[in-house]
């Protein structure tokens, strides 16, 4: 158990540092898309929800909680990526011009 905890902790720390490095250079123009894009990524909890929702009806409370989690996480993921894409579709440089 302890080894697993340490191992997961390792991943956590490295990912946090990686996150800081990745995001530190985003220009303020893109702050909103960055937020909603990263917000969509936080819907990754969907993966955990799927496992809970699929454990079989033997434990119906777990399945119910898992199914609700799947639905909400999916809204987060799908809505988040779509909104971000819609926003980014509007950003354009001067040369290209015109609305797509």
């Amino acid at each position: 158990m302890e080894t697993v905890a340490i191992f997961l902790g390792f991943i956590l720390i490295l990912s946090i540092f990686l996150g800081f490095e990745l995001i530190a250079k985003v220009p303020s123009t893109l702050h909103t898309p960055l937020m909603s894009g990263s917000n969509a990524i936080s819907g990754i909890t969907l993966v955990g929800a799927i496992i809970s929702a699929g454990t079989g009806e033997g434990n119906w409370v777990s399945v119910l909680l898992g199914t609700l989690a799947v639905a909400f996480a999916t809204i987060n993921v799908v809505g988040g990526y779509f909104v971000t894409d819609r926003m980014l579709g509007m950003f354009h440089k001067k040369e290209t011009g015109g609305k797509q």
Partner: protein
Amino acid sequence: MNRDVLINAVYIIAAISFIFGLKMLSSPATARKGNLVSAVGMLLAVVVTMLNKEIISYQWIGFGIIAGSVAGVFAARLVAMTRMPEMVALFNGFGGLASLLVGWAVYHYQPSVNVFTAVTIYLSVLIGGITFTGSVVAFGKLSEVITGKPVLYTGQQIVNAVLLIGAIACGVVFSIVPAANYPLFIVSVVLSLVLGVLAVIPIGGADMPVVISLLNSYSGLAACAAGFVIQNNILIVAGSLVGASGIILTNIMCKAMNRSLSNVLFSGFGAVVNSKAKTSVEGEVKPIVVEDAYYILEAARSVVIVPGYGMAVAQAQHVVRELGELLEANGCEVKYAIHPVAGRMPGHMNVLLAEANVPYDQLVEMDDINPMIETVDVCMVVGANDVVNPAAREDESSPIYGMPIINVDYARTVFVLKRSMASGFAGISNPLFYKNNTRMLFGDAKQSIQGLVSEFKNS
């Protein structure tokens, strides 16, 4: 091949997609592709998870995914661009709620877990719950369902502190004997939801960008905690990437307001302000009519437009862009100067102007415009107030003293488009309105600019 190996191999690919996706989001030219890369990574992770051996029935998964997708697509397609901040807040809250539910489901399935798992279950419920109700309150504030002003009462901080300590105490007891403490667990769920509400209600509208970024970070941390619960790498990696990005944004927003995070979270801004709003201002207000404003703009060689939340409220971004184009056709150089905390979420103004078809290379940041602002003929302030208030620079008694602002008062002429002389969101009087080079163009921002546009067209 062993299923678990395949699943984890695909998770690695998903993690790489998220990392590259976020990296590509840092440049406007690649951002859209980056979002797509990250979405593909998410799809891969979801699909491969279906192979997990613990899954024996798919009907409820399918039901949840279909319901969520339909709701998500509709919400994302139909929302107006001005409503974007609250939409993002709501999506964010759902992510937090999902993490809470995952923690709960795992605990219900197998209540006798070891201490480590119990702690992580508790954290995913606590952070997830705070994220959920906190985001819903933020959603309510942004969409003006509930008041955007700080909600304060005496003893508020004590109540919050007691609840937080209570939540931590519950967590300790729960983690030591998780199997015997189901009722305590339910209490903790409720406690986390209440905490989320209480944490966000004292925070006022102008501080919303900070809160939104912080909640964004929380939703990542909640996913991260859920990852520890089910011992899943991809949740931990993705969750902490989001957590880190949210913290960085929060920090940028705090710096742009010259306030510490604890100051934003624990002191209702408006309340502090009203007690000492006594800034004595000299000079008189000089109104201007659309026609005179037109003659000045017509002669100007360079114009800088400074948008604020008022532009979003008046839905004036399209006429602003039209005016900008007419000015350019007139041989004038037009730029849009954007303060980092203008609007209600980080980068709010940029999105609105992009919607109105303003090219992003015309948008300049505060630090780039300030050194050259003295050479600008006309600064047009459209619905911004506190972010151009010279009191932040000059008046040490002002509550916003020290906050970096766009120094529009150094420009040759300043037009301020404003409904009336009422003070801005923070309730602070603005000496800018009384400066010699300032002209007030009273009325609805959209109508005023429309007036200017038709003056240009008729000439």
